[in-house]
């Protein structure tokens, strides 16, 4: 049997063995507790090389490309709330509730849009915060990147304030707007922030766009970058839209004049970039997307194309979720007149007995059609409307004709439509509906003019008219914001 000494020795040996084996075990994976992710970059390193910073810049645009946002759904919702499109599909996911003017604070559509816009704003805020002081890149580049971020931030706040707040023109921006987040957020806290007024939000948008204009380059080194990255002309063009929303026609004219010469041919050239109406409207949508008409587009390729419930092409004509409503602008002779030779009529098609929009012509996935967010035709029409409002009817008509005659060169507006100021303005507004059909401007155009959202009938029922006083004239602040931001009050 084992003696006491032996016993002791055994215990001793075992203890040593135990320690040894633990040591072996430890050395086996020295860094067991020091794992480093292989597929992500720590936030402390995210702005440490020129390439990473440029990656952050491209993320600004990537955020806009979100399928719930400028990548599709935001544009669709702005059309669905108007009267140009019907709704065949009762599925809430493709916007049946939105078409039916039934936005719910808990609905995915409402949440997703808010989330996408603010994610993009934070991306811009983080870039501004991290790049403003960096030495990794040259100072002009630094300022340019910050300017790009400010442009994106402005575009986001415009989408938010137009969707979730009362129109500026209803009360000169006195109503509650949205929380103005101007600092990059990476940690807990700061949940509570009041909603700034509509006027304050617009002031910030204009400030950002002025800053952007100052520091953005006139042009980039490639046409595709000119089409997809903010440059001086982009910031100016967006300002024409913003001032028009505020009915600040003087400033619309001031900004538009930077891009549009006093007399035809209307064309803007600065450095390597030229913006003008392309000869054929169809080529804006089906060509190389770099013909110069586009001041800002959202790009896609196979890897990041939108899904079938968000892609504009799928929505407008492949699935035909929303065909053109017969009572909408489709009824205008330019689009449905038998004799019409308007090129824009050629952007329409027929499917299952319905008229459908073919502007985004990819007939199947991947839906890689670029989406024009701002194009020269809109700037001309912004300018025309402001000029008409400011009684410069000649300039207004000339700009209007530029847009119309691009698609229908022989067309002459009846004098009754263009002679008197109110008629001319109505004609310009109608031209916007024809020219910009399906591009997501209809609801903002109705609301800046303080018009009700029109009633309509579709396959999934009817949607009554929504007067400006109704609670569903604008969208509710999403329930997630209300439940987390104690200072955010719901829309009445």
């Amino acid at each position: 049997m084992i003696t006491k000494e032996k016993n002791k020795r055994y215990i001793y040996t075992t203890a040593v063995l135990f320690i040894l084996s633990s040591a072996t075990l430890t050395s086996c994976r020295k860094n067991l507790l020091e794992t480093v992710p292989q597929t992500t970059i720590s936030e402390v390193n995210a702005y440490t090389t020129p390439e990473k910073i440029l990656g952050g810049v491209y993320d600004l645009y990537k955020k806009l490309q979100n399928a719930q946002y400028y990548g599709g759904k935001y544009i669709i919702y702005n059309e669905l709330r108007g009267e140009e499109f019907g709704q065949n599909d009762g599925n809430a996911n493709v916007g049946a509730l939105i078409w039916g003017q039934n936005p719910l604070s808990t609905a995915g559509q409402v949440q997703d849009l808010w989330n996408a816009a603010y994610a993009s704003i934070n991306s811009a805020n983080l870039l501004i915060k991290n790049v403003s002081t960096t030495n990794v890149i040259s100072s002009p580049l630094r300022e340019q990147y910050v300017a790009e971020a400010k442009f994106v931030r402005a575009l986001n706040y415009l989408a938010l304030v137009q969707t979730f707040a009362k129109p500026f023109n209803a009360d000169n921006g006195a109503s509650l707007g949205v929380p103005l987040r101007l600092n990059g957020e990476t940690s807990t806290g700061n949940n509570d922030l009041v909603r700034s007024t509509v006027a304050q939000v617009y002031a910030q948008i204009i400030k950002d766009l002025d800053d952007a204009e100052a520091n953005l380059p006139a042009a980039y080194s490639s046409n595709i970058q000119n089409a997809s990255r903010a440059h001086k002309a982009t910031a100016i063009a967006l300002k024409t839209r913003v001032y028009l929303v505020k009915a600040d026609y003087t400033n619309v004219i001031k900004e538009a004049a930077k891009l549009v010469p006093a007399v035809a041919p209307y064309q803007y050239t600065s450095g390597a970039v030229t913006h003008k109406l392309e000869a054929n409207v169809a080529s804006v949508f089906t060509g190389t997307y770099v013909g110069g008409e586009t001041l800002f587009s959202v790009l896609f390729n196979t890897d990041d194309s939108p899904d079938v419930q968000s892609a504009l092409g799928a929505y407008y004509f492949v699935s035909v979720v929303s065909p053109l409503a017969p009572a909408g602008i489709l009824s205008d002779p330019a689009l449905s007149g038998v004799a019409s030779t308007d090129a824009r009529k050629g952007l329409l098609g027929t499917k299952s007995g319905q008229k459908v929009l073919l502007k985004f012509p990819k007939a199947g996935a991947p839906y890689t059609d670029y989406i024009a967010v701002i194009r020269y035709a809109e700037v001309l029409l912004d300018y025309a409307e402001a000029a008409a409002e400011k009684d410069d009817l000649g300039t207004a008509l000339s700009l209007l004709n530029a847009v119309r005659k691009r698609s229908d060169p022989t067309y002459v507006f009846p004098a009754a439509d263009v002679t008197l100021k109110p008629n001319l303005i109505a004609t310009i507004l109608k031209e916007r509906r024809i020219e910009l059909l399906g591009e997501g401007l209809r609801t903002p155009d109705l609301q800046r003019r303080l018009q009700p959202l029109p009633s309509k009938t579709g396959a999934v029922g009817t949607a009554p008219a929504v007067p400006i006083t109704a609670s569903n004239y604008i969208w509710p602040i999403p329930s997630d914001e209300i439940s987390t931001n104690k200072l955010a009050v719901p829309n009445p």
Partner: protein
Amino acid sequence: MHPPGPKSTKQASNLASAPVSIHQFKIQNKSMKKIAVKDSPGPGKTGLPFIKKSFISLIYLTLFILPFTIQAQDTKAQINSTLRGHITDATTKEDLVGVSVQIKGTTHGVTTDKEGRFDFVTGQKFPYTLIVTYIGYEKLELVVNGSPVEIQLKSDLKELDQVVITGYSTLSKKAYSGSVAQVKASQLENRSAQSFDQLLGGQAAGVDIVQPSGVLNNTPVFRVRGINSISSGIYPLILVDGVPLFTGLVGGTVANNPLSSINTNDIESINILKDASATAIYGSRAANGVVVVTTKKGKKGKTRVSYDAWASVSSARNLPPLLNAFDYTTIKNEAMVNAGKDPGYKLQTRSDGSIVNTNWYDVAFHKAYSQSHNLSIAGATDATNYFVSLGYQDQNGIVRTNTFKNSLVRLNLDHKLLNNVTIGVNFSYNNSLNGGPNTGSLPGQYLDGGALGRSTNVLPPNVAVYNEDGSYNFQDKSRMGYGANNADASSNGYIGTINTENLQLILDKDKYTSETNNAIGNLYAQWTITKGLDFKTTYGVNRLSVENQRFQNPINGAAAPSGGSAGNAYIKNYRTNWVNTLQYSTAIAERHHFNILAGAEDIYTSSASWGATRTGLTDNFFTSYQGSFTTITPANNSQGENGFRSLFSNFNYDFDRKYLLSYSFRRDGYSGLAEGHKYGNFSGGSVGWNISEESFYKNLDLAKTVNTIQIRASYGQVGNLNIGDYPALGFYSGTTYAGTAALRFAQAGNPNLQWETSKKTDVGLKIGLFNNRIVLDADYYNNVVDGLILDAKQAPSKGVPGNSIKANVGSLYNKGIELGLTAQVINNDKFQWETSINFSTLQNKVTALSDGIDIYTPSTFGIQNMTRVGYSVGSIYAVPSVGVNPANGYRIFVNAKGQQVQYNQAGASKWTFLDGTPAPAIDNYLDGKIQGSSLPTYYGGFNNTFRAYGFDLNLGFTFSGGNKLYNGTRANLLDQRYFNNGTFVKDRWTTPGQITDVPKLIYADNVSTGFSITNTSVVEDGSYVKLKNAALGYRIPLEKVSNGKLTALRLYVQASNIFTITNYRGSDPEISINGNSIASGKDHNSVPNATTITFGANLNF
């Protein structure tokens, strides 16, 4: 080789059982017997699971065997008689090896050989009294009058509970004061299932299992004492032979539960550790309970070959009745007219004059046949014991094309290398192939358009599956054909888009599979350094590989507009754990028993996956990912790793089995936490008092009735941090924007993140009556979780990824009582009835959240679950509805101000007060209210076994209640689009003054129905009692027929999900559309659980 036969069987059995039957228990059934045999001691072999075998041997040796073996030494004596005998199990008739046989009043004893035989040559003359003892069996004294004798031993049920296996060690239950639920093999076997966890429902107190749907191999909801976390993992830690397993859902579109890699037939026992004392040894991973699974070992004696097989038939149960084509057209046209449209629905007449009336349930469901085969061979020699098994299952689900094929092998081997060194291996490998359609019954899937559960409920019954020429009926790539319904979009009777595919075509052409290869094993060596001191090193591996494949056809369906699509994803999970333990057990002065364990463990886990999606078939011929496509995009790519480094110890002490003391400590380091927070300390302790062991008590009269009384209490802190590899880190991830490199903010980090702490308190009482014929276990538990890791909701306007940051900012508790009662109600030779009841209550309450911010997920379907301070986790949430306005048929909601607001889909103002003036729209969040707990507040099981004349009957009930369910299926079945409706829609409002709960039908309305805004009209009581399992078996005594070659043949018929008593109006109140999450209690077009009838046989050689 046949020994001298008994005088006669009858006589022999009389000899064995007659004098002692009154106080003897019969063994339950075959599987119980296995356990009993397992516990039998043989020289150098305990038959217990490998873990701490030597230690257990010592304990047993000391406590039980030594007295007999010492006495059993032969003494030289004059030969006066020769006795030969054969000892078998009274129930199973199997030979018992190593049984002690001793002549009363002498020191003369022998043990039985491997055929259960013994020879006695003794100086005693007949008659004399034999004392027969055997671990796990009742001690028997009998008078023998001559040779040979046939002796039958009856198993001693109370002996079966003798050990608790905690993973790192095995402890005597009598000396154990933690709270553990034990499930025996017999409670699981012979039941048709895909994984053992599915079978645990109703089997143990404190364990709540919800089988979420009738989809094969769906991972059940598994809760031990409630929900103990919110954002962190809520699944218990599962260990098989000490190896921590991967758990969850790994199949992508189809269900695939990695626990199906464990062959239920291989399981010896399951110990579910519940309180802090029991779980603290697992430290940071223990908050949700620990499930310790032990697999079988070989036993000495004749090599045992078992073959178990069953075949089953399953059918869908209690599908909600839907409208036929005739009622459908009437109802839908009424809704269209009410919406100001023209009727658009028409019956379709075929050329032979028949009317199209499609039952889509027939397309989706069928009677499904399954089979299972299992072969095991087990045996042992003095040095080696082995258990090998082979399993094969070919199961078919009630959903067409839902299949599950599983092949499993296992090898368990222990070998005594040296006198004091044992090595061993436990290894299992399986290959399973899960196939089926997108059923819509897995978490997150119910939203999917083409999901089968949705398709059956929305597809119009007045359209045909096939056109008359035999081709599929569809239109427009992604939609069902219109049939005779109005498809003219320019007409006022246009019914709109049918946004659903032809289900038959989808079932025929689309294919989803998930294939698993899972190797689980460990290798150990144990060195008994000196008596009572053991060193053990164990290296465990779990290598889980999963390949998920998807093919969607280019003709009709979600992928048809893209020209067809295929996706493959390959997922590699790899985990190793290396444990070194040193254990010392000793007894001082015979009454102080110590057991001290110290150990170190490293666990390393890596997970990586890669894959891609291909779209646009270049030719319709192709049907797999490897075919030819026009585009490819990356998908399912991920890579990560984590590590735990731990030190742990356990101290157990008891004084004379009367006073029990236990303490465990573990220090865990986790790679995913920031520097300074990596380590956490966890500990738990318990005390117990076996009052019935006190001599003063034994002298009481009460002791004759109440023979066991134990009280115990425990407290401790364990942790939880099941939140991924890099929870503390803020990081960016690479992406591309139209092909250009981009870098996006992907996770907001929290360097202060720490472990969740679960403080568990437990007070328990155990009472045994009538020699433990009735045993009652009662526990009170209270788990308080602090520093709860939340995906703390951030204001979405902050724009941080996911609008959340992980932080330790919440608290909750789970408390309740657990009662377990087992009783031998009737126990005589002819008839036995055993019953066990377990009953648990649960009170779950959230006491703190980050800034008090509610946790919920808004969606297209409104808000069903709300986690709010003061209520239970994931409570059911809905806007109050007071029913349907008898005046106009509109549903009336009550807003937060208490005002009644009605909804009219066709109104100029959709929301109005009852006087018709416009009202603010109902807001699901602001106007909603918590309707009740989604977690059962009580649950349990009631199991009965009856045995007579070779028959055995098992009846297992489960029950659960006190919870609310959101019946989203009913909301769906009232939807006023083209969706089909439940037959209950016939009660819709049509006439002023009519009282009904079904509102006026208005086309396109999905608000009044509870679909877009949750309302209380479909919030229902989820209480139920279910006859979950019934089995009738007959044991054919084959020994004589086969000359002992076959030892047993049992035939049985078994049924599961037989009936349910409930007020719930859906298919089955046992439901979970959201899987193991805090969003419980929602039903939405889920595939109901199947009713299954199984025929089986167990054959032993």
